[in-house]
């Protein structure tokens, strides 16, 4: 996807311009998939990422392409942030042979090893174990492993057991609790202190404004630098207020991270027509991606269901 390029560590507005494009891509991609779902083309569940785009994109700005990321069940957000091709991702949700996982995974379990996405995890907390494990490998190669997970994970065993291992072994891991305070309120969960739980394991932590791309990127860059230099893991609690269901998407909520990023770019001197061109580019790319994905073939059961095991090495 030229023009969108995987998010890269950059300090100029240019980096944030690309990042804004990627946030927009996530928002628009999700809306397109919801439309296809209403038409019965996408048949599996989609866990919405709208309102959290600044978290995945801000964190991935601080990463190298070879770094590892594991996501939770809002997988399409993490995948696009880490650089997965939208056409391959759309084809995945459509269950096509050209999907990034050949149509075997669906949205919640996307894997894209080429872009460092080691997997998305429906089991609450499972992404943390995967990233901590990848951290064991990452250290050998100067890489970093990042886990995204929701607020409910902080109550579960994976969170604590894995923090313990990461802290004791000083693994190059960044744990990103991406709290959707709106979703948590809807579920009747009181806002617990997640960041504070890292102290139990002697791990530094930080509460981050998850609606602010710049704040997320800055916190992630510090945590990634710490991890890469061998100082060990960090827990970031990124609080996203979530979109109000009535707000109807980008632009209408004052705290909408997408609208916020756009305003900040304008304030930082990016010309409105540069933004509009970028936005048209994203829309056009997305349309093309969806069209191609819709035209792709369904997998052939004969070949797909052939072997249980990977051939022995």
């Amino acid at each position, binding site marked *: 996807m030229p023009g969108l390029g995987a998010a890269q560590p950059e300090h100029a507005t240019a980096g944030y311009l690309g990042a804004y494009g990627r946030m927009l891509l996530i928002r628009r991609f999700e809306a397109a998939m919801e439309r296809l779902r209403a038409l019965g083309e996408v*048949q*599996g*569940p989609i866990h919405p990422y709208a309102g959290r785009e600044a978290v995945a994109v801000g964190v991935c700005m601080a990463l190298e392409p070879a770094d590892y990321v594991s996501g939770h069940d809002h997988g399409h957000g993490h995948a696009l942030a880490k650089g997965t091709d939208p056409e391959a991702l759309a084809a995945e949700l459509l*269950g*096509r042979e050209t*999907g990034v*996982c*050949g*149509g*075997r*995974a*669906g949205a*919640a*379990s996307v894997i894209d090893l080429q872009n460092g996405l080691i997997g998305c995890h*429906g*089991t*609450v907390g499972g992404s943390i174990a995967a990233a901590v494990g990848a951290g064991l490998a990452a250290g050998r190669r100067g890489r970093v492993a990042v886990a995204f997970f929701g607020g*409910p994970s902080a*109550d*579960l*065993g994976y969170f604590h057991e894995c923090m313990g291992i990461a802290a004791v072994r000083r693994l190059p891991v960044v744990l990103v609790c991406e709290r959707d305070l709106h979703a948590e309120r809807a*579920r*009747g969960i009181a806002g617990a202190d997640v960041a504070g739980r890292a102290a139990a394991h002697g791990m530094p932590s930080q509460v981050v404004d998850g609606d602010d791309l710049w704040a997320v990127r800055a916190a992630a860059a510090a945590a990634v630098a710490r991890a890469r230099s061998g100082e060990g893991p960090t827990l970031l609690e990124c609080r996203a207020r979530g979109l109000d269901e009535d707000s109807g998407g980008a632009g209408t909520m004052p705290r909408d991270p997408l609208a916020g990023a756009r305003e900040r770019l304008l304030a930082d001197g990016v010309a409105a027509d540069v933004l509009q061109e970028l936005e048209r580019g994203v829309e056009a790319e997305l349309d093309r991606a969806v069209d191609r994905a819709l035209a792709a073939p*369904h*997998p052939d*059961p004969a070949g*797909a*269901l052939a072997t*249980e095991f990977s051939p022995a090495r």
Partner: protein
Amino acid sequence: MSAPDLRTAIREALAEELERDAAVVLLGGCGEDPGGALGYLRERFGPERVLGAPSSGLALAGAAYGAAVAGLRPVFELASADLITLAMDGLVNRAAKFWHVSGGQGTVPLVARAAVGAGCRRGAIDSQSPCSWLQGVPGLKIAFPSSPAEARGLLKGAIRDDNPVVFLEHRRLRFARSAKGPVPEPDGEAIPLGGARVARAGRDLTIVSAGGSVSDALDAADLLAGDGVDAEVLDLRTLRPLDLEAVLESVARTNRLLAVEEGPRLGGWAAGLLGLVAERALHDLDDAWTLTMAELPIPYSPTLEDALLADAGSIVAGVRARLGLAPGVG
């Protein structure tokens, strides 16, 4: 009285048992909530009877076991049967063992409810049947109702049972409004766990199944009648204990056994059932086979998932092939 849908059946069973016995409590409820029930029940019975808890299978199963040992009758809910993987220590190492290990001092009357089953495009990690993980655990019952009406009676039976029970609610039953075949128990009564049910009587072939596949077997039996094949359909109702005598009795009459399971063949209950029958009544059998899934994770792609799952059509095709009937007859 019209037959209930699954949500209503589950909600009614829970409400009636909460009403009947003050020891019954509900734990959890962050999942799919197939009964659609917990909000309503919490309002009606209060937060001391219907307790919210984090969706943590590990602690929920462990705490339900402790609560049951101390005199409650907890019913807890896992968001999905795939998450039974997180609850195994409490279920397998604790609840299932307590009665024997304590030398009969006490029992563990807990029920672990979970939504189960493929066919809903939920992918490999949200569609699995957990039967094979649990069937080999002595002391743990597995109930797998085949219709909303059955679910209602069996859930009441599970809650009243003094032993720990895993209660599986097949997702495809949500779309079923009525029970297929006769429901011998009057509505509202508990069905004690352990006995199979003849869902359809027949003379030529015994089709054994459980859960969501029973209605496929009944549809297949209707179609096979057009071929002149009179199939008996047995609904196992529970996979442990297993009503082997009912199967043996049926096979002694039909001499042919087909076991239909939504799960892989190797390690599944269907192949095991064939083995138990072969061991006891080899010479009653003219033929015996299974219809299961391939030895694969369940794919997300609708095309692939449909290819993997049996339905009435594949049962009929299998029976025709096995009996040497021309395909398409009838």
